[in-house]
Each structure stands twice: as C-alpha cells, then as structure tokens.
C-alpha cells in the first residue's frame, strides 16, 4: 500500500480535509472519504460522465482526476448545487418538470454539465443541437435524453430574470 497524503480543499464552499492514497481518484475521495455520495461512478474510464464535478468551475471527470490533484482547489458536486435554503437550481427544477431523469444515476453528472453550459453561454441563446452536443459526454440509459434536452432548453432560453432566480 502506498503512503497516504493529507489534502485540504474546498468542497461546495466548505473547507474539507482528508487523507488519501495518491491512487485514489477524486470520485472515490468525495464518495467514500467525504461521504458525498451524490457523485456517481459508471465506468471509471472517462466516458459515461456520471462522475462529472466542477473543479474550479470547470466540468471534469472525477474518475480521471486524482484526489491529490484537487489539493487547494474548489470542487462543486451535486450536493452543492441547490441554494442553501434548499431551493433547487433552475436546472434541477427543469429536469423534474421535463422528466429529464428516471433512475437518477446519471443525473448529477448531467446537472454539472448543464451548469457549465449555462455559464459558457452566458445568457446567449441555445439551440437543440448545441445542447445535445454538450450532453454527448453524459451517458443515460433511461431517458433517451429528450427530457434533459428540453429541460436545458427551457432554462437556457428562459427570460434572463427567470434563469437568474
């Protein structure tokens, strides 16, 4: 067993610490050391997207990022997406309204991808093809994607005030 390393980072705005083997990826660390089990693992080789989190605001595969690499950085997971008072983020809300989730296993990764897309578009309009492209790295076996595409379009093309809520 290789020696363990202490790491300190910020997760969902809160400073966290932990001790990990260097080989532990960020997903294992979040799930099993910090018990933030909302981030899921579907392949551990970077294709399914279930493990997607934001690292300093950018979407990454937490299965292809070592926990030690998150040292000193800010990680956002699905648990940190809703407002502190519990209000769902508009993307979460829309996913439910448009039936964009079934088993919910892929959902956390989908939410993180769409949050990044929303930020990248910065209020600019979104068309269906670009939303589908953005979601190409998130496999879902349940929904056929349509509900999540509709959810994304409804939020991204909503009046700016509604989107900011």
């Amino acid at each position, binding site marked *: *067993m*290789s*020696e363990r*390393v202490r790491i300190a980072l910020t997760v969902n705005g809160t400073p966290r610490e932990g001790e990990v*083997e*260097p*080989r532990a*990826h960020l997903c*294992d660390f979040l799930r099993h050391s910090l018990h933030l089990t909302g981030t899921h693992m579907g392949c*551990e*080789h*970077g294709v399914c*997207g279930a493990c*997607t989190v934001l*690292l300093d605001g*950018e*979407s*990454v*595969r937490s*299965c*292809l*990022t*070592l926990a*030690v*690499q998150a040292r000193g950085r800010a990680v956002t997971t699905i648990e940190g997406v809703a407002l502190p008072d519990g209000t769902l983020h508009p993307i979460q809300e829309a996913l439910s309204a448009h039936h964009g989730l079934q088993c919910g296993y892929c959902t956390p990764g989908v939410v993180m*991808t769409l949050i*990044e897309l929303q930020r990248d578009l910065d209020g600019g309009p979104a068309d269906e093809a670009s939303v589908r*492209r*953005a979601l*190409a*790295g998130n496999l879902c076996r349940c929904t056929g994607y349509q509900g999540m595409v509709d959810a994304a379009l409804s939020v991204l093309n909503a009046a700016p005030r509604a989107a900011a809520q």
Partner: protein
Amino acid sequence: MKAAPFAYHAPATKAEALDMLAGLDDARVLAGGQSLLPMMNLRLAGPTHLIDLNGVPELAGISRAGDALVIGTMTRQRAAERAALVHEACPLLAEAMEHVGFQQTRNRGTVGGSIAHMDPTAEIPVAASALDAMLTVESAAGARQFPIGELAEGYLMTQIAPDEMLTRVALRLWPKGHGHAFEEVTRRGESFCVVCVAALATLDASGAFSRLAIAIGGLAEAPVRLSGIEADLVGARADQDAFRAAGAAAGALAADEAPFAPPAYKRHLAGVLTERALARAAGRARRAAA
C-alpha cells in the same frame, strides 16, 4: 478498476520535474491524465512513480514567436480551443480541437499530453502534423527538437526517452488568407474517431494552389502526411479534379487493421475525407482572397 499503488510527486518547476525524471526509476509524467488515468484504472499501466506536471505553470501557455505558434505542453485542450490567438492565427487547431474527446475531458486534457500519447486516432497530432509541428523534448541533460513526423516509433510508442518529456510544441503558422479544414468520421456522433484529415491551403491569384498540407489520422500508428500529392498539386487549379486527385492519393495509402475499422473502409474514408477537407480548405482560401 482501481489503479495500482504508485508514489506521487508534484514538482513546482520544470527543472524539478526533469530532475525527478532523471532520478526515479519507472516514472511517468502525468499531464491531463485523460488517457493515462483510464489505463491506470484498468491496470493497463502501472508506473512506480507518477510525476504530476499540473503544478508547473511554466509548462502551459500559448504565444506567438515569429511564424510559429508555441504551445506549452500543459496547455489545456479547452484553453487552446478557446484562445483568441489560436482562432486568429491557427484556426485549423481550433477546429480540430472541437473533435477531441468530450468537453469534460478537454477541460483537463492537454495539448502536449495528447501528442506524447500518440493515439493513432487522436486529432491533435494530425492537426500538428499538417502544421509541421516542431517538438521540444527535454531532460535534465538538455533539450532537443525534432519534427512531429519523427515522434512515433510504434503503436503508442514514441522516441521520447524515459528520462525525457515533451515540453513545447511549435506549430508553423500559415499566412493570413490561408484556408483550413478538419474532417472526421467517428464511430458515433462526436466521439471515437475512425479516420480524420487536416488540410491547409493557400491559393495564388489565378486560383491555383500555391501551398498545401494534408495530414491523415487513423490509418497507421501515427499521422500520415500526403507529401507527394501536396507537391504535385502546387500550381494546379484548386478544383474538383485536384481534390479528387488528393483523395485518390489518400485512398491508396496503407491502413492498419483495427477493430470496427477494416482497412478497406479506412482507406475509403481517407479518400473521401481528404477530398472534402481539401475542397473546404480551398473554398475558405478562395473566399479569403475575394
């Protein structure tokens, strides 16, 4: 699917990283990790030492040096994809970049990592090959440079020695008004390239090719440059016949056996995509001239 144990090293400078490479046995550098970490998770790779370059700021960055675009090895693919300088001076790279992996892997994957990994179907080496990339490889003993065409030594094998690492990629820039195109056939939608083609062209006042470059990925272990037909077509009118001739030359190349991509299909795609890429590049050059 958990990686085997390894010792982790996080140098803060290039010099430190090179010293570690010189001193440690069975060490590998970790760039973006989007190819190496899956292989380690699958235990297809299991270095004793992992030297993480992500904390070495001097290894990243995009700048212009004369007629070259110099890209630090640790420059994120997504950063290159979005850089104004790349769009303006080297639009081929920007276009190729959109085809690389997924957004979530481009956020982390690096330009140098992709080139050093030398996956036969990777897009960045193909664009770099069309752009006559000059690679800088360094070790504690010093630096050396060689063109990208000399990099590969076999399937996923390169001439970068165990104590060396790729530090810089210099792409030869084309003059304003050149045309570019990147064409790709994937196994599915945006992902998993079968064959891809990068093309660059400039036209003279008569509408003939004054210069062109075509590189093809997916056929063999490394990108193939169509040097013969590039030379033949200089001075030829940039028309359907020329595009077809380039396509025919591409279609005559040898292709390796690969799962889901039998050689006949890949050769055929090389021809089709070369024709399309060159036509699109020439069209852009023509429009730029107009």
